[in-house]
């Protein structure tokens, strides 16, 4: 039994990272885990992108003195992935900053709790009684 070709293994790896990341985004509760899951998913996406330039037995697209010793891989995806990684870094930094801020403001790092609190906040900002309450609108809720 021989191993499957390299590109298939790489592709499977990229897809797996993507899926693990997305599943983590859906299933995790902890905000930091969500950011980490996002990182994993982005890594999968980036790997997929760089894989689009992969050629069997080719070398890096750098011209060093002599003529290239063989076919070179596609340089464009490498440039793309550089861009994509930086984008990912920016997004994750912002996400972490928001997690910090949200934790300080709400005192929770759990997504479902955060969502419930957010909806309460929105209702309160609009001067609404909480959903399902029979109270007249605009009445101060007991804290």
């Amino acid at each position, binding site marked *: 039994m021989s191993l499957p070709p390299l590109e298939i293994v790489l592709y499977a790896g990229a897809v797996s990272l993507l899926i693990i990341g997305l599943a983590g985004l*859906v299933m995790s509760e902890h905000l930091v885990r969500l950011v980490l899951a996002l990182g994993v998913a982005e890594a999968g996406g980036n790997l997929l992108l760089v894989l689009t330039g992969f050629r069997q037995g080719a070398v890096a697209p750098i011209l060093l003195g002599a003529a290239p010793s063989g076919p070179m891989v596609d340089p464009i995806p490498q440039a793309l992935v550089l861009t994509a990684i930086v984008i990912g870094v920016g997004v994750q930094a912002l996400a972490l900053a928001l997690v910090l801020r949200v934790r300080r403001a709400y005192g929770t790092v759990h997504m479902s709790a955060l969502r419930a609190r957010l909806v309460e906040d929105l209702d309160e900002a609009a001067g609404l009684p909480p959903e399902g309450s029979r109270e007249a609108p605009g009445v101060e809720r007991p804290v």
Partner: protein
Amino acid sequence: MTLLDGLWAASALTALVAAAFGRHPAAGSWLTVLYGLQFLVVAMMGGLSEGADPVPASVSFVVLGYGLAWQFSALSWFFAVITAGAALAAAWFVSGAWGRAYAARGGDLRLLQLALALNPLAMYVLLASTDFLSLFVGWELVSWSSFLLMLSGGGVGVRWALRYLVYAIGGAMAVMAAMAQAHALTGSFGFGALAAAVPELSAASLWMLVILLAAGFGVKMGLLPFHLWQAGAYAETPGPGAAFLGAISSRMGLYAMLLTLFGGLGLGTLQALHIPFTPLEAHELLAWIAAFTMVLPTFTALRQNDARWLLAWHGIGQGGYMLLGVAMGDALASAGGMMHVFNHATYQAALFMAVTAVVYRTGTADLNRLGGLVTRMPLTFLVLLIGIIGLAGLPPMNGFVSKWLIYRALIDEGQPLLFVAAVIGTLGTIVSVYKLLHNIFLGRLRVEHESVREVPWSMLTPMLALAAVVFVTGLAPGPVLDWVAAVQRELGFAVLVPTLGGVDRPDGGLDMLWVVGIMLAGFGVGALIFLAGGRARTVHQLDNYAGGHFLSAEVRYHYSDNFYAGLMHRIGSWYRGSFQWLQDALVSATDFLAQGAAGVYRAVQPVTWLLGVTVLALWWAW
């Protein structure tokens, strides 16, 4: 500048004056003059009913490649003359004491005047439609201007106006669907193109058009089951507004149906369109819907204890007669149906004004809190009397002529069931309008109404004028039938050639001059007997009966209370809340779905949706 331009300009000027000076007490008279001017311009186009060429508007637009043009034909003119007359009468009614009292009670007189002025303007635009697009534009304008009129009084009216709005938009959307469908089928908005394409269209697409158009315009007419908005919306509109709306507004639905279904698709198409598995054709379906519309709302009117609501419910029922006549489609019936538009407008406006006059003096329209006003408001009583005779379709008033034509045609056409339905409807009308007359004007005068006086002439004049029209066109229906004949000719119906007094037919015609003459002679004899006979005598208050209901010491002392209790006990349960369930079901279904929609993102995290829908999309991509 054509006369149609002139009419629009006069109407727009009226609206501008109303918007600018509507609050001023003196503006009422000026506005009345302007409405008179509108009526005059319409009258100057009278040649349309004698086969003159259509009057075009000199404005036209091309929008997105579609042309928009307007013109008045005999059909437009027939409805326009009713509109102009009703608007003039209503404005006259507002112009004097009533308007001042309205403003004094805190009503927004300017808003009312503006809304009252916008309604005829929108209708003149609608009535000048030449294709689906201009029809739809006019249709929406009419819907929204009557919405404004319903709102103008505030209070309960707002809730009814909002309900009307939902119905109206729903109807408009059905019309839009029909219009888009017609355009998709024929590549144009024209009625002519549609008529030409009919032979190639499948029964399914024809049915779709018929149902969409009938439903869309039927909402405005208050056809069953889309009638639930109308009574409340009209009744809660300020009095003169209600008179105007009740007289003509919902008839715009009939106009549009005549234009699209009968003029566009053609009566022949409707008669050839068979309903699968039944012996009925499309036009008979319409006739049966009309029959139910005659009966159920009329008997609902019987149960009303508010005079305005009672009249508004009758307005819905009378619309059924009009559609029934038109849907039967022969010369007599269609003439009867269309003439009924005119007749209904005259007596309905008079009736609403009479009731409004009563409210003006007594402050209530509650039939259980009135009575005996005949001695205090004799002229109003006279107007109401003439009006209800017209409404009930009894000679010598004009309502009799149109209903006679319809009955006669139903018998000729061999439709005994529809005939019975029409008669039952009339029976219900007679019974309930007697309640109206009795509970307001007959019986005992209530103590608090001892000092009530007749209303001022600014209100009486339009009422009496309308009552005169009701009588005169009953006496000599010929001219109105001439107008109707022009419409029949335009739309391709068989044409009824009238005489001055009615119809002359070998198998028995109608000559109202004779009918009225004989009736008056009979009244004269009766009056002689009455005068010659004994005086009235005083009896014990329990030695009496009313509405088939003997009074006893146990029942309420004032017998206008709970009028027809016995009758309602027998038949009331048959139609209680008819079709209310449909509206309730739709509303609660929407509410239920909306709850689900609002909870879409509450049940799961949004990212789950992203993942799930991606998987589904990929699956589907395979």
